[in-house]
């Protein structure tokens, strides 16, 4: 069985928020592997361990710096990686991203594609369903549990009231939540082994994808409206009375 995991490098969530000249998120500062993708890698590695015979391939689109995020995934235990890097992809929209990933993944003919539910930086949640569509795969989403038996994949799909049991035959795309299990730390052995694992560099020409006009154009970026600060008090024993008084005032009690 071959499992592809999509991974993304994102600006360090704890770093400064910078914009490019055309008002997109700057990606030239410190970058990290999207924490959401670590769950995807973890899910793939668990399937591999359960089946005993699977290959886990990371596929990423991003600038040269994405290599660090890819290397982290390989250190966790993925077998090899494909890194699509092309200057023409700077500022690519979700559709272009999905088209590029789909082209790179098609060449691998995987049984499963695993993604996070959404990236931690853009949070649009659109690449996985678009990718599934472009690959012609069914999508099993928001999985908090994944079971593979033979060529059938069954998931528990997180819902508001509990979960849905959803199944499909492979090939299929899965998006996973934090419920699949705590991502493992890369061991020293894993870090050493990752150094010699293959990372195939691919450009747009290799994939035969020509990015179209973006679906959207950023007009401007402004500060979000902030709530006005209210009263801040130290709890000197009267805090409970003050909270109750406010709840009474707004008729909540």
């Amino acid at each position, binding site marked *: 069985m071959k499992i592809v995991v999509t991974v993304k490098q994102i600006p360090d969530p704890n770093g400064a928020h910078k914009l490019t000249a055309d008002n997109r998120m700057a990606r030239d500062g410190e970058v990290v592997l999207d924490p959401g993708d670590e769950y995807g890698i973890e899910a793939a590695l668990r399937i591999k361990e359960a089946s005993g015979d699977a290959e886990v391939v990371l596929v990423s689109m991003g600038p040269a710096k994405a290599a660090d995020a890819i290397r982290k995934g390989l250190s966790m235990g993925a077998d090899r990686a494909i890194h699509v890097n092309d200057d023409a992809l700077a500022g690519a929209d979700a559709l272009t991203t999905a088209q590029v990933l789909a082209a790179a993944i098609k060449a691998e003919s995987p049984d499963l594609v695993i993604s996070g539910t959404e990236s931690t930086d853009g949070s649009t949640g659109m690449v996985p369903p678009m990718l599934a569509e472009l690959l012609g795969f069914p999508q099993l989403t*928001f999985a908090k549990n994944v079971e593979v038996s033979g060529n059938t994949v069954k998931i528990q799909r997180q819902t508001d009231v509990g979960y849905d049991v959803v199944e499909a035959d492979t090939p299929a795309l899965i998006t996973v939540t934090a419920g699949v299990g705590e991502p493992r730390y890369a061991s020293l052995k894993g870090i050493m082994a990752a150094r010699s694992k293959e990372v195939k560099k691919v450009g747009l020409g290799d994939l035969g994808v020509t990015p179209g006009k973006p679906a959207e154009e950023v007009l401007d970026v402004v500060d979000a409206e902030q709530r006005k600060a209210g009263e801040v008090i130290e709890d000197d024993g009267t805090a409970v009375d003050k909270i109750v008084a406010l709840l009474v005032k707004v008729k909540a009690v």
Partner: protein
Amino acid sequence: MAKIWIYAELTGGELAPISLELLAKARALGGEIEAVALGKGAEASAATLGKHGAKKVLACDDEVFDKYLAQPATDTMEALVKANSPDLILFGFTSESREVAGRLSARLGVGQVSSALDVEAAGGGFVAKVPYFGGAKVARMKLNNKPAIVLVRPKSFEAAESGGTAKVEKVTATVGADSKRAKLVERVAEKGEKVKLEDAMIIVSGGRGMQGPENFPLLEALADALGGAVGASRAVVDAGWVPYSMQVGQTGKAVRPNVYIAAGISGAMQHTVGMKGSKVIIAINKDAEAPILKMADLGVVGDALKIVPKLTEAIKAKKGK
């Protein structure tokens, strides 16, 4: 006049609240407003959709939409879009709708703007407002394609009846031979929710400052006393203290209660973007520098573990009188 479609979300025959929120926005934009409802309860939903401003409902009660995820709805939407040429399609940024919106936008090759807070009509087209950096900034994005597809975050608009009735146009399901693949085997309800988080008028939410899952019953007791629901920050959901269904924030639920009590939550942008629309915010945090205190109507620098139980008792005493 622009033709505006809203994708009415049906789950097990129930119309999702986001559908009515989208209709409120569609009315504000002005145009020919129509809804598409697919699945069990579609035709029956037309009465409610009409009351909220839809002039026409394209409805199909076929159970194929309830049995298989995303693909049958995508196929049918594609056929309907091609036959009717809407200018704008509004979807909810919900787990059900975004799957269909994503596939459809790739199928049509038009892309989309997702996770939007608002939509405006401008220059004969549409502009969507999207949060950047977890909500610290807002980008205005002009949509270049037709149909323009926008996914709007729940609770961005208030649903309101406008009166009126919708004409029901029955449509047939168009489902590709290869589209019955992600099969819904079973729906499992894990717990009988007392009050649904997104519908609750009062929410008591907990974060890392609650120290551990063993202390969440303190929040439940307070929520029970107030007749509210319990929420949580992403940090404690990721840590496995409470289920994802309780998560408030950018990657969880957006809520707009009358009162939001944040106990031991620092107030990361990821969290606040999902609750800053609350009418009154009360925050309790040991750290005087916690960002949540700067946006609260009443911020208390103190230990939530000590204050919450006392607050519960005080409210019970008050109500007992």
